[in-house]
């Protein structure tokens, strides 16, 4: 499981090695590290890391160990791989209202609607979801399309 961490290290020799020891001790595998020495803030240097831990517990243990070493943790959060998908729904006049009522739960980051002279509504949805939830999203949109007797156009390889 990947975690994105930003630490504030004192700008003196040996600090980076000191911070890396608890990570290694708890089984963390460093994916990337950015040591921004040219951006010190009040004598502290930000270090951004992406670390792959074997479990959330090993991540939590690392955080505790870093804190007990007096190392400040500015940010620590799990990296969730997300995908951005675009869909189009085509249906009747009620479609817009229905979609707008459901989008909060779907991770919609963009919505565009166009209505034809005959009253057919076309709705474009841009949705961002964790990659592991993409299939569930597809199923939900298919259900919505079926309920509303609408045509769902999915991306070619969701």
């Amino acid at each position, binding site marked *: 499981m990947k975690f994105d961490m930003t630490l504030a290290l004192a700008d003196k020799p040996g600090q980076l090695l000191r911070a890396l020891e608890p990570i290694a001790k708890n089984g963390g595998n460093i994916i990337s590290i950015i040591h921004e020495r040219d951006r010190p803030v009040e004598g502290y240097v930000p270090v951004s890391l992406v670390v792959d831990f074997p479990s959330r517990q090993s991540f939590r243990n690392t955080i505790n160990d870093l804190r007990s070493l007096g190392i400040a943790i500015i940010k620590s959060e799990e990296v969730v791989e997300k995908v951005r998908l675009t869909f*189009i729904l085509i249906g009747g006049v009620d479609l817009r209202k229905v979609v707008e009522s459901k989008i909060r739960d779907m991770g919609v980051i963009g919505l*565009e609607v*166009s209505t034809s002279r005959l009253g057919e509504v076309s709705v474009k949805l841009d949705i961002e979801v964790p990659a592991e939830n993409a299939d569930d999203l597809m199923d939900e949109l298919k259900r919505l399309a079926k309920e509303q007797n609408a045509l769902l*156009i999915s991306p070619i390889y969701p």
Partner: protein
Amino acid sequence: MRLLLIGFGFLGKELVKALRDKINLIRRLDGDFRAVGAVDSKGYLYNKEGLNIEGLSNLNRLSEHEGYRAGRAAVELISKDFCDVIVEATPTNIVNGEPGLTHIRLALSRGIHVVTPNKGPLVLAFRELTSLAEKNDCELLYEGAVAGAIPVFSLVRECLQGDRIVRLSGILNGTTNYILSRMFFEEISFDIALKEAQEKGIAERDPSYDVDGIDAACKIVILANALMGRDARLEDVERIGIRGITQEAISLAKKANYAIKLIGTIDRKLEVAPKLVPINHPLCVHGTLNAIHIETDLAREITLVGYGAGKETVSAILNDLITVLKKRAGKTNSIFEA
């Protein structure tokens, strides 16, 4: 080798012209090659010494030719007494496969090679027909049945022998691709684009076979059975056509750098449906072109683009005939070598 041509419609006539133009190339492989018979729905021509291909290529109807035997049927000639290979090019019928299914069954059971662009028999009885061919040690080749001139079956058979196909997808119907392309480029409605396609002869008067995705679904079934070891039927394909697509939807997609295309897909399931295809994706081709995107475990991705219908299909039929000739002659080298 003695060829019997069954079906003297558009493709049958184009094939005869191709045989006329390429006869020297064919006779380099088989000096004794001749077309001994040509059959239409009302009768046939037959000459065991070989019909005059030049003369045949000038006919509009077989009945115009001297010696035409009206009221006779192809089944009389499907015998090793009369022919070694048939090209079965009768109109496709996905309800019961006839008359093509009877012709192909009879030919294969008698050890006669079959080359066919006819989808109906392949959709309805693929496993049965391929087993018959294997049992009787003869060839059943159908390159022209899916995506016309695009040599997808030959490519996989000859050039991807070590690969496992993971997913296959494609634009398999030129009529719907034409309609959707016109809607995309000219910003016109589905109804106007369809009318235009009908006026140009690209869509039939009853376009449902194409616009409702049935034609594409037939091709997906054949591809799945032939290339991915499935035992699929037409009813296994989840199918949605393009009738409900609005000009507004096409414009929304275009603004976001997508085109809407009718895509057939074979992975965990079989599907034909309109999809959003990124404009820079190799499958995003326009007009009446077809495209097939093959994903394998070794080669990764290969995309083939070409004409899926029309006289270009003759390329596939002729190549299949040449394959049969070469196998019979025990030749594996290029036909272009001296």
